[in-house]
């Protein structure tokens, strides 16, 4: 499963993308944030306030309770500031 990061989430983690293989117990977007947070201080820092983290699966915005099964690309990023 490919995971991509943007803006300060990318900067805190120190990479723009990676491939991860979470255990089967990680079912939802929220679960994945929790699991990623355990992978090191940089992840814990990036995800320290989960409620501000936005997520997308295959280019579509999703909520923390969205199931990740079948996802090709999951993105994590801060609230958007375009326009």
């Amino acid at each position, binding site marked *: 499963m490919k995971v*991509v990061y*943007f*803006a*300060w989430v990318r900067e805190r983690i120190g990479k723009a993308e990676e491939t991860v293989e979470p255990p089967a117990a990680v079912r939802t977007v929220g679960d994945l944030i929790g699991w990623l947070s355990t992978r090191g201080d940089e992840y814990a820092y990036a995800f320290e306030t989960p409620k501000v983290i936005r997520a*997308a699966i295959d*280019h*579509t*915005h999703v909520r923390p309770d969205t199931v990740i099964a079948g996802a090709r690309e999951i*993105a994590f*990023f*801060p*609230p*958007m*500031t*375009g*326009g």
Partner: protein
Amino acid sequence: MTYNVTIRIQDADFDVSSEIAALTASRTDIGAVVTFSGICRGSEGSGDATTALTLEHYPGMAEAEIARHADEAMNRWPLTGLTIVHRVGRILPGENIMVVLTASAHRQAAFQAAEFLMDYLKAHAPFWKREETAGGSSWIAAKTDDDDAAARWDKN
């Protein structure tokens, strides 16, 4: 009836008159064109002068999100077309960040669609702005106002 929908994400600046000309070329059913230009200000209100903004986007998703909102605007209002150009990269104060154009036979549709697109772009399009000041650089925080503005278009 044909529709002109153009979406571009680019480093380069754009010219509003040229975009209007492209949107209205060789048709005479357009009575109203609204444009919204977003411009880099010299201060984000933090007190320090902004020396530049750097815009990052999520390639692929940004285009898809904008296209989805463009389709929604075309369905909700009687538009003849619309154009959205959003720049990425480093942008100096006074320079263009983005532009939305909407064209219609009548003004109400053009105004409403332009406001709708701007509210959605601000709140939902995956772009992020980093501000440089003399003291360093930091990511600009999202405004809850923008979420509220976008929510007013949600259908019940």
